[in-house]
């Protein structure tokens, strides 16, 4: 565009380059490896490195989401999926890769072709930085009263897109419900309640002492994780965070519980029927805010109407509620996927540890 601005070569640029080369190395390793367990772990590494890179690019919200999704939840879910299939990728015929290679090369060539005319990284006069982006930065403060511009853009200026994305997540959960199922409610303990004490003693003997450390630590950590999720949720207006990240964190607390105490215990605490309801409820909360705006005489998702005397407060209120909707759907769908995968495989027995 305008060749005036040159990206400065400073420490951050060097760090960015290091991160990018690490991503390339990890990417090649993922392609080359046949051991799926290693692939899953490396994809977690890939996400973690990209999250670190995003931090260095000052995209903290994106980094947070990437860390929570890529390095957190999706590694667990991919492990769950892997347990359903094989540990090794089946060998494929080399001929089949040629088309893919051509497509990849063509895509890369097209992107390289475009780079010549791209604005320099960080150019303050480039179109994305100068036009609407700048507008958001100027307007967010006075209009919404939310310090974190990302939250304001996500939940208010482009709130309808986020509504759509929340529905996308619900749709994914729906797919798991339909194709894999949720595996029904928790299986009740077989022992009769009369022998509770004996059963308990028996149970603790079976449980064995070898992972008592994990149980103690996880018991300590799970409440803290959930509180942290709530913090991320409600602090999203001020710093990085919001419904997506909080939903993932809270879901990961419950998944941790399921991993340590068994899937049945988790299903007793958070029954599948509740999770299914929650996935639907979150979208309904989000859309409900929009419908309330409609009923109050505003446009869909026009939060100003929630507080006519003080529109910015209306914005804050609206953003808070839609973020709760996002939280509920995201957390529920993550659990739906986890339940869907785990109910398909034999329960991990104590002796398997």
């Amino acid at each position, binding site marked *: 565009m305008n060749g005036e601005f040159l990206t400065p070569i400073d420490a951050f640029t060097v760090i960015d380059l290091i991160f990018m080369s690490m991503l390339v190395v990890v990417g090649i390793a993922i392609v080359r490896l046949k051991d799926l*367990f290693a692939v899953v772990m490396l994809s977690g590494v890939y996400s973690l490195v990209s999250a670190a890179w995003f931090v260095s690019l000052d995209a903290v919200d994106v980094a947070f989401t990437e860390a929570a999704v890529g390095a957190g939840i999706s590694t667990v879910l991919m492990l769950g999926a892997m347990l359903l299939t094989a540990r090794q990728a089946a060998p494929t015929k080399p001929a089949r890769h040629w088309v893919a290679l051509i497509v990849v090369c063509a895509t890369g060539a097209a992107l390289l072709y475009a780079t010549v005319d791209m604005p320099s990284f960080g150019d303050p006069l480039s179109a994305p930085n100068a036009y609407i982006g700048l507008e958001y930065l100027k307007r967010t403060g006075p209009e919404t009263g939310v310090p974190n511009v990302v939250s304001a853009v996500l939940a208010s200026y482009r709130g309808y897109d986020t509504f759509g994305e929340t529905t996308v997540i619900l749709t994914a959960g729906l797919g798991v419900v339909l194709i894999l199922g949720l595996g029904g409610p928790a299986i009740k303990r077989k022992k009769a309640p009369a022998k509770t004490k004996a059963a308990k003693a028996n149970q603790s003997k079976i449980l064995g002492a*070898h*992972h008592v*450390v*994990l149980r103690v*630590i996880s018991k*300590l*950590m799970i409440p*803290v994780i959930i509180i942290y999720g709530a913090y991320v949720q409600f602090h999203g207006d001020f710093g990085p965070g919001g419904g997506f990240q909080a939903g993932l964190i809270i879901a990961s607390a419950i998944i941790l519980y399921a991993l340590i105490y068994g899937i049945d215990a988790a299903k007793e605490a958070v029954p599948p029927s509740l999770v299914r309801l929650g996935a639907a409820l979150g979208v309904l909360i989000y859309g409900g805010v929009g419908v309330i705006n409609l009923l109050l005489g505003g446009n869909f998702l026009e939060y100003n109407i929630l507080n006519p005397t003080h529109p910015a407060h209306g914005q804050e209120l609206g953003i808070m509620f839609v973020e709760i909707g996002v939280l509920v759907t995201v957390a529920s769908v993550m659990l739906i996927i986890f339940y869907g995968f785990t109910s398909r495989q034999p329960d991990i027995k104590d002796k*398997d*540890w």
Partner: protein
Amino acid sequence: MSDFLHILDILRPYVAGIALLSGGVIVLIGASGVLRLPDFYTRLHAAGVTDTLGTLLVLLGLILLSGFTLLSGKLALVGLFLLLTSPAATHAVANAAHKAGLKPRLGTVKSQAPGEASGDPS
């Protein structure tokens, strides 16, 4: 008294630097241990021990740098959780490997045995 505090304040960045640097060095040593040690358990030992100490030192350095603020409170909390989870995770991995029947390599190390490089703890 205030003089003493003042001196502490002057020293603070240096102490922080030393903590950060030594933390980094310890993590590096751990990484080289993971690469060079002969079997799974020794590698885990290298990773686990150095990770806990190294990251805690780094956090300590950062706390010293940020001074008495909310940020250092958060960093201290991160340190606390690392102190809890890092050894627990190391324990879990070692335990899983042990349960899966991976035997530690005993005896003196005479030569590198590449075939026995990494046990698959499952």
